[in-house]
């Protein structure tokens, strides 16, 4: 870890101004991810701008939906009664993340910006296009059991690690982003993340100085009847091999609307509209779920050690749908 300066920002404008003045600056909220990256020498920042003084708090439920301040802690949101009741998939995704200690520290906005757990990215001795553009991607022919089968490129197959983001993408959540100049803008989370392509080091559409201030989730019947299922190597405190965030609105046995997104398989949180479309209008049965889930991995390109995800992704979707249909 290098030496760095530290400052507390009193407003988003102040934060943005400080960030624009130093290209090596980073915002810090919970720090559970950033400090690790700095200790491992993966990121070297000359300035940390602490956002924790900003008033980006609040969990507000309304008829229109849920608004969550970006500095809310994962544990507070995950355990919030309104979230548990109306957006169970979000609560479950949060509580299946990390450990209680980390969730008590980690912020919602920071969670969405966490970086991949790919072992090649996390060790500076390896080449990695995401860390050092153009250096190569040993994961393509290396240990790729946990890596992506969807959205990858010859440059990068690193999996996006956030559980929360998978649930939010499924529910069509939007981010409120403030920049030093102009009005706050609103971006659907699904459009926020960038596929790696030939530039895996650019992971999202956040411009320098911009701050995520809030997350909004539209209210919907399929949000109230939703579920997050995470399959992993141990019962707790492990990243997903495959996860599924699903929501269903079933009326009279017929599916009116459906939302399905996958984690652990994509380079970004992976919503599967084809699966959703195949569910709508059908009866909520296991056969329907199976037929629809098969569409989830149509475009997958697995590597040597992660072929199992083709099957596991479908099964995870089916199981999660059975949970909410029950």
């Amino acid at each position, binding site marked *: 870890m290098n030496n760095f300066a530290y400052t507390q920002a009193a407003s988003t404008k102040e934060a943005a101004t400080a960030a624009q003045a130093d290209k090596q600056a980073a915002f810090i909220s919970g720090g559970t991810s950033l400090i690790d990256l700095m200790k491992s020498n993966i990121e070297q920042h000359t300035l940390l701008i602490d956002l924790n003084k900003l008033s980006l708090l609040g969990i507000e439920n309304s008829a229109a939906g849920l608004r969550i301040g970006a500095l809310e802690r994962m544990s507070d949101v995950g355990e919030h009664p309104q979230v548990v009741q109306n957006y169970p998939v979000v609560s479950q995704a949060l509580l299946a993340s990390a450990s209680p200690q980390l969730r008590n520290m980690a912020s919602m906005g920071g969670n969405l910006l966490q970086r991949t757990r790919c*072992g090649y990215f996390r*060790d500076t001795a390896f080449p990695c296009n995401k860390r050092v553009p153009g250096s190569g991607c*040993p994961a393509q022919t290396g*240990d790729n059991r946990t890596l992506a089968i969807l959205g990858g490129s010859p440059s990068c197959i690193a999996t996006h690690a956030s559980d929360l983001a998978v649930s939010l993408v499924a529910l069509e959540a939007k981010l409120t982003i403030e920049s030093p100049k102009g009005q706050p803008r609103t971006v659907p989370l699904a459009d926020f993340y960038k596929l790696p392509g030939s530039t895996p080091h650019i992971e999202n559409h956040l411009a320098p100085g911009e701050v995520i201030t809030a997350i909004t989730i539209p209210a919907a019947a399929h949000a109230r009847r939703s579920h997050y299922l995470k*399959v992993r190597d141990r019962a*707790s405190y*492990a990243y997903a091999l495959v996860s599924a965030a699903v929501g269903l609105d079933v009326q009279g046995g017929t599916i009116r609307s459906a939302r399905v997104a996958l984690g652990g398989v994509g380079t970004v949180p992976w919503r599967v509209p084809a699966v959703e479309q195949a569910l709508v209008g059908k009866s909520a049965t296991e056969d329907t779920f199976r037929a629809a889930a098969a569409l989830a991995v149509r475009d997958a390109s697995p590597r040597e050690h992660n072929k199992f995800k083709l099957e596991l992704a479908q099964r995870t979707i089916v199981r999660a749908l059975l949970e909410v249909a029950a």
Partner: protein
Amino acid sequence: MSSEPQFFDQPGGVVGKPLVRVEGREKVTGKAKYSAEFPLPGLTYGVLATSTIAKGKIQNIDTTAAAREPGVIAVLTHQNLPKLAKTPNDAAGKKDIGAPMGFLPMTSDEIFYSAQPVAMVVADTLDHAIHAATLVKVTYQAEKPIASFHDSRAELFNPAKVQDGKEDGHKRRGDAKSAFASAPIQLTATYTHPVYNHNPMEPGSTTAHWEAPDRLTVYESTQGVTRTQSSLVAMLGMPREQVRVITKYIGGGFGCKGSTWPHTILTIQAAKAVGRPVKLMLTRKQMFTSMGHREDQSQTVQLGATADGKLTALIHTKVSTTSPWDNYAESNSKIIDLLYATPTFEASYEMARANVMTSTFMRAPGEAPGSFALECSMDDLAARLGVDPIEIRLRNYADHDYSTGQPWSSKSLKQCYARGAELFGWSKRNPKAGATRDGRYLVGMGMASASYPVHNSQGSARARLYADGHAVVQSGATDLGTGTYTVMTQVAADSLGLPMDKVRFELGDTNLPTAPNSGGSVAAGTVSSSVYLAVQDVWQKLIKVAVADKKSPLYKAKPEDVTAEKGRLFLKKDASKGEAFGDLMKRAELTDVEGMAQGKYGPGYESGHSASPAGPGNNTESASAHSMHSFGAHFCEVRVDMDLGTVRVSKWVSVIGAGRILNSQTARSQIIGGAIFGIGSVLMEATERDANYSRYTNADLANYHVPVNADIPDMTVEFVEENDPYINAMGVKGIGEISMVGVAAAVANAVFHATGKRLRDLPLTPDKVMMAGLAS
């Protein structure tokens, strides 16, 4: 016979009782000093910079940027580190040092494995050293490494010896190949294991303090201060009395702290170079490449049996990865040779050199993977014949050790099976595999046998009894965290007839009497015996005083007619004639009396049972004529979600026969810990080595998975009462390793019973379990 400490089992004694740790308060209040917690004046901090390639040569090391950083005192490399009297880089040096690896980094420009130390930065603060270490710029002439025996360029060979020269690379008993070829039942199966790392909670650490050019004190996280001292003495070319090693507390070792690894001597040399004490603590990432690992391996078992399931042959072959210099492979075949009544046996080893550091012993070295292969194959045999897994083991029960022909010193395996089955509810097991369902889960019950040898060991202790009724007892042993402080205090208290709070037990210092490594399950038996015998030495000294003292009721008694119990000396034939030690000592104006003794453990121990001279036809009572092992049985229930491939252990029972149990609470904890260690090894643990770079890709505890609470159910542990007069004065076998032998097989057998699928490629992660279901 007279030396047998029968009185431990009397009312009022503390040995065997479920007592809390005497050092528990020190630990939870942070007062206990681990090896990296000794503040020294002028202490500096060492941090290693390690290689980014696995094979090649250092072309250039540029240390200027690192040296320029504030607080940096020195940047040491192979070019400026003080030279040693001896290195392990040649066979003679390795042997003299007792080094685990025939290569010491930073003695040349050669790179043999990834993350090999290339420089050490010493700075005034840890932060300065950490940062400066990242600024050491090394350029390499890299070559393509070989990553494992799987590599197409790897060259396999048959070593003459394995396990660091301790075991034969080829063993034969009878004609196993012919017996297998003619067996009515023939089973052949191959089992594969990943690399495992010990990952104790406390990383390896060294604090080196040259108090004078001829006086070195090292605070080291080691499982054996004496063994570390021996290695250092050889490398430094110093007399033993000038090198002191101290280890007061250890946060786990599991074998990786059983030898002296490179970081220790490099820190000592750095301290010499800078003329100040240097502390180095390995990072978690460095723990994967600094203190050995369990080697990646593949083992094949060929099992021949009669139609009713009696073994006629076992043939075992192992292929594994070793380092460029050493022929290390844990000896899996030992347990396969002796666990059952197998008339013929053959074992052979193959290995290939790769660009990895040398592997080393890790909890139950050999027995852990060996039992996995054997006990899964026995389960296959049971399934093949439609016989209950316990019944197949009883049909092959070894009434003596077939590998040596010797009788057992004691064996309670049948009792372990019976009691374990009862506690577990084994009778409810459906004989048919894949036939028990609970909702979405397939439920399976599995079991496996365990055994672990009583190795040959010895150690000394000193006991000083004070007239005022307190005592200090010492032995240079180490407490891995499993309870050595506590159980030795118990043994000393009962031996002295004092309450526990009047006895202080000290360990972990080469200035104390010599004790063996805490490893190979020898510590409890060796140290407790030496403590017990040291106290007997105290009594013998006091008895001599008593019989010469006119005022003593024992005046003029023959010393051999006097004994001591509960702090009182008395006539064996008339217990009313005697006195308390305090009365005697005060009258004789003795403030304290010191006793010293050496306790022997294992085949070297000759008890009263072996008093008759060994000779033809007369040596069956000799300790060394016996095969000495602890035995046990593990029972496991799993719930398998076959759709998603997840396996959860839902019930666990271990029943162990391991001689005298010194503290039923710490012993229970140790068995639970070992069983969890084994559950991790079968379900989730694996160090992933990239095949192209020969470098680990999950060297952290986020991605090297060990069990968390949610993976582990309530566990039941029981011990079978066992009185073994042949193994040592205390009758203690030790339980450090047997706790995990057979555990992996018990889980895998339960998975087989649940699913009808036999999985042999560890660990059994969801991908493998799910895909096995798909293959049907």
